[in-house]
């Protein structure tokens, strides 16, 4: 068995347990959080390297052979996602050192972060639908507590909506899993993929596929199921917002891509057309919502939704080129989104508000921060040569090849609106003169000693993310090769099935 397969689960679990044992020592927990997430990132990269060299890796967790045991499997897509989850974990852990308040640290912020990362990695690596449900629950429980930790009024109101919608989605997911088991008699994804290809098309299977679509769609925040996201993502501390915005909705998208490439490809004309329509509407409503906002973090929260649409566009087109674009875009959007949220956190620390109307003049005072904002912002809008440009280029080319002009047009229009709303933040927060209110001026001229002391910890993760964006933009080739490899594996499940079951399709 390849030990790299379970390291991304064992490392966060160990870090969480050790942090819990060191409950009273804030210092130990802080050190553990950086070491644990750094090791997770390294193990993710090693897993990616191993999968790239040796093909899809699979393992059974006990003596039972494949369809009966607990399967852990990593194809290129999973491995990329695990590596990027480790990267996000590390960035957020370092950022948390500077920003998280003592109260939240004392009530178990760091152990929860590790458990969240364990749930996310578990969802990426599992090869069994029911285990996917269990990993989702691990991740959700940790995220519920992170959302509510601190107990501010806005957080409580946000948490109620977040918890409710996610629990409805879980109940639907569970019902769909049960129905699929009733029809097919197995829940191992490779086994299911094989049996579904041998089964004649049934209406019930399409019904089950739609249940999965709604269940994962709520988690991924697609149109029209996204209303919980802008109502809750801006309420917790910025570090938590970052990990939610970067990773959690993407786990929903990951599950959608996995299920609708491996399992439900019997009735592509129907199911994937629905996904394509949803993709267009998600992009459009997300970006229109963003344009209407005047609050830094809420605006960014709406952009999460809009970008999810691009990922679904890749899935809906269902060609190798489109999926390669989606995988590339996934890596890009996770990094870009996280770094924008991190910048919003720094702006809040400098000026004490997220309201764009009250902000201003940041370019004059903090030009370096302004550049760190501009890189992910332009990348998100798709300005060459940054990462977003190549992601959108790949998706739009793929759309043109299969002659889906409507979605291509939508994607282009949404790009312009994205650029527009990013420029709005730029103009309001960075470029225009600071408004003449004594309160804002006072806090700007006298940054507290805490801000000065932790300045490097604040800027380091943002700079690292900005460099990553520049890197995958300027050297798009390696990542695009990886994404194409991942897409080919997704489009041809024979290798996946062989790796898990040990027999050919």
């Amino acid at each position, binding site marked *: 068995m390849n030990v790299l397969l379970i390291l991304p689960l064992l490392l966060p679990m160990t870090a969480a347990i050790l942090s819990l044992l060191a409950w009273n020592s804030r210092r130990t927990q802080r050190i553990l959080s950086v070491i644990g997430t750094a090791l997770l990132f390294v193990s993710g990269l090693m897993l990616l390297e191993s999968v790239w060299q040796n093909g899809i890796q699979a393992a059974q967790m006990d003596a039972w052979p494949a369809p009966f045991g607990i399967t852990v499997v990593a194809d290129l897509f999973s491995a990329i996602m695990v590596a990027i989850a480790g990267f996000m974990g590390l960035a957020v852990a370092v950022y948390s050192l500077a920003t998280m308040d003592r109260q939240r640290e004392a009530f178990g912020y760091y152990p929860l972060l590790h458990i969240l990362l364990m749930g996310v990695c578990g969802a990426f690596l599992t090869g069994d639908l029911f285990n996917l449900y269990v990993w989702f629950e691990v991740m959700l429980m940790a995220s519920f507590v992170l959302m509510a930790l601190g107990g501010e009024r*806005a957080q409580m109101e946000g948490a109620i909506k977040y918890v409710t919608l996610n629990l409805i989605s879980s109940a639907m997911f569970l019902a769909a899993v049960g129905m699929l088991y009733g029809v097919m008699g197995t829940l191992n994804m490779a086994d299911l993929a094989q049996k579904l290809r041998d089964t004649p098309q049934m209406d019930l299977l399409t019904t089950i596929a739609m249940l999965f679509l709604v269940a994962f769609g709520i988690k991924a925040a697609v149109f029209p199921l996204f209303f919980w996201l802008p109502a809750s993502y801006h309420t917790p501390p910025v570090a938590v917002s970052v990990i939610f915005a970067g990773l959690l909705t993407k786990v929903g998208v990951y599950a959608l891509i996995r299920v609708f490439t491996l399992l439900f490809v019997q009735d592509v004309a129907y199911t994937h057309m629905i996904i394509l329509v949803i993709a267009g509407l998600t992009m459009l409503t997300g970006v229109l919502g963003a344009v209407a906002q005047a609050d830094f973090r809420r605006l960014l929260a709406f952009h999460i939704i809009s970008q999810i649409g691009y990922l679904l566009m890749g899935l809906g087109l269902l060609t190798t080129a489109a999926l390669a674009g989606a995988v590339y875009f996934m890596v890009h959007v996770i990094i870009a989104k996280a770094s924008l949220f991190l910048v919003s956190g720094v702006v809040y620390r400098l000026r004490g508000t997220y309201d764009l109307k009250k902000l201003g003049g940041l370019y004059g005072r903090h030009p370096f921060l302004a550049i760190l904002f501009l890189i992910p912002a332009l990348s998100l809008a798709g300005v060459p040569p940054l990462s977003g440009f190549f992601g959108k280029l790949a998706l739009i080319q793929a759309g043109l090849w299969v002659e889906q002009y409507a979605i291509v047009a939508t994607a282009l229009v949404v790009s312009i609106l994205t650029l527009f709303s990013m420029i709005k933040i730029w103009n309001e927060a960075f470029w225009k003169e600071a408004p003449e209110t004594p309160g804002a001026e006072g806090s700007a001229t006298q940054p507290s000693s805490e801000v000065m002391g932790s300045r490097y910890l604040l800027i380091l993760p943002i700079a690292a993310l900005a460099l990553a964006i520049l890197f995958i933009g300027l050297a798009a080739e390696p990542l695009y090769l990886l994404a194409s490899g991942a897409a080919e594996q997704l489009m041809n499940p024979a290798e996946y099935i062989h790796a898990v079951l040990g027999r050919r399709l």
Partner: protein
Amino acid sequence: METILAVVIGGLYAAGLFMMLRRSIVKLIIGIGLLGHAANLLIFTIAGLTRARPPLISESLDNSTGFADPLPQALILTAIVIGFAVQAFALVLIHRVIQTVGTDDLDNMKATDT
């Protein structure tokens, strides 16, 4: 038997949704619980009902009497445990929400909406 269970499951889903659409968050939590039960019962029913058959059989015995599928039972057991934990968390959460916001009316919790 399947028909009766189908009606019960439908009833549970309907009752759960009805409770969730009320304004009180206490009823909201009850509704979520009912949805969870409905899903569990759905798995139990759809995987096939077998009466008075053992789930575990030995190789030596005569297996002609058939056996019950142990997997749905294992799934439901897991789902019940998870559901229990989630319910416990949700109860603590609404307790804190009512303390912080000072009401149990969902209509008064719109400050973070857009």
